[in-house]
């Protein structure tokens, strides 16, 4: 009588591969969403000696000043007068302490100071005296 052949030992990897792909898709989407918070149209000036930005403060307000002098927060265009009111409200929400609201000013390198002045005056309106000027420490590409 012929011997019956036993099947080789195999593992079903389908479920594992499914999970791996799910994780890859999640991370790829999460990373691209995080990058979208920075306006790519703004060319920052180089500052190789500046303090590297390691982590983001959830309270921070990033104000973008574009080449044409227009202002925006989180990619939403905003007027200087409204920016002052928003910063005042933010300071009031954090117990009226202006130091609790870090303001990061991301100005295009070619923009004139008179355009930056609008954003700085809005900070003064909200009694925010400590300003962080964003720059590029190291260019990636």
């Amino acid at each position, binding site marked *: 009588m012929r011997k019956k052949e036993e099947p080789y030992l195999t593992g079903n990897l389908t479920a594992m591969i499914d999970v791996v792909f799910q994780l890859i898709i999640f991370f790829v989407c999460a990373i691209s969403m995080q990058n979208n918070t920075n306006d790519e149209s703004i060319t920052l000036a180089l500052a190789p*000696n500046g303090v590297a930005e390691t982590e983001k403060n959830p309270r921070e307000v990033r104000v973008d000043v574009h080449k044409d002098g227009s202002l925006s927060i989180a990619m939403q265009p905003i007027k200087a007068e409204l920016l002052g009111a928003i910063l005042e409200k933010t300071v009031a929400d954090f117990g009226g302490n202006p130091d609790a609201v870090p303001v990061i000013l991301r100005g295009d390198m070619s923009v004139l*100071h*008179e355009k930056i002045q609008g954003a700085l005056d809005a900070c003064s309106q909200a009694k925010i005296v400590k300003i*962080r*000027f964003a*720059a590029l420490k190291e260019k990636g590409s």
Partner: protein
Amino acid sequence: MARKRRKADNHPGELNLTAMIDVAFQLLSFFLLAIKPVDVFANLDAFRPSPEKTNVSIPSSPMIKIMVLPQNPGESGTYVVNDVALTTAQTEAKLKRYAETDTTQTILIMCAKRSTHKQLVDLLDKCAKYKLTNLSVVSSAGI
């Protein structure tokens, strides 16, 4: 009569990894092509004194006043340090000298309206290089 036990043929355990390795290489190639180096951002801290406070604090302590003048295309930035016009390199040398004396002294940076933001960032970067931390940025009324 005792039953004869048939000895089973033992096959060594085997997994077909070909498909998984294919996928792994596909992913590796994809990420190698798709990845782009990330920019490293820096923050340069400065104070923006309110107009009322500026008037009070100016006479109280000696401070270094640096004015950022408008820049002509193709020229390097021009700064006026304590009423003396200097080039970028001269300004840096001056800042180095100030830092050797005291890194906590107040530096008042006055930006002309027509000066570019790059000039201000360059100056703040030079101050950061020499650990000069007490910086105030104000806007000049003229030019």
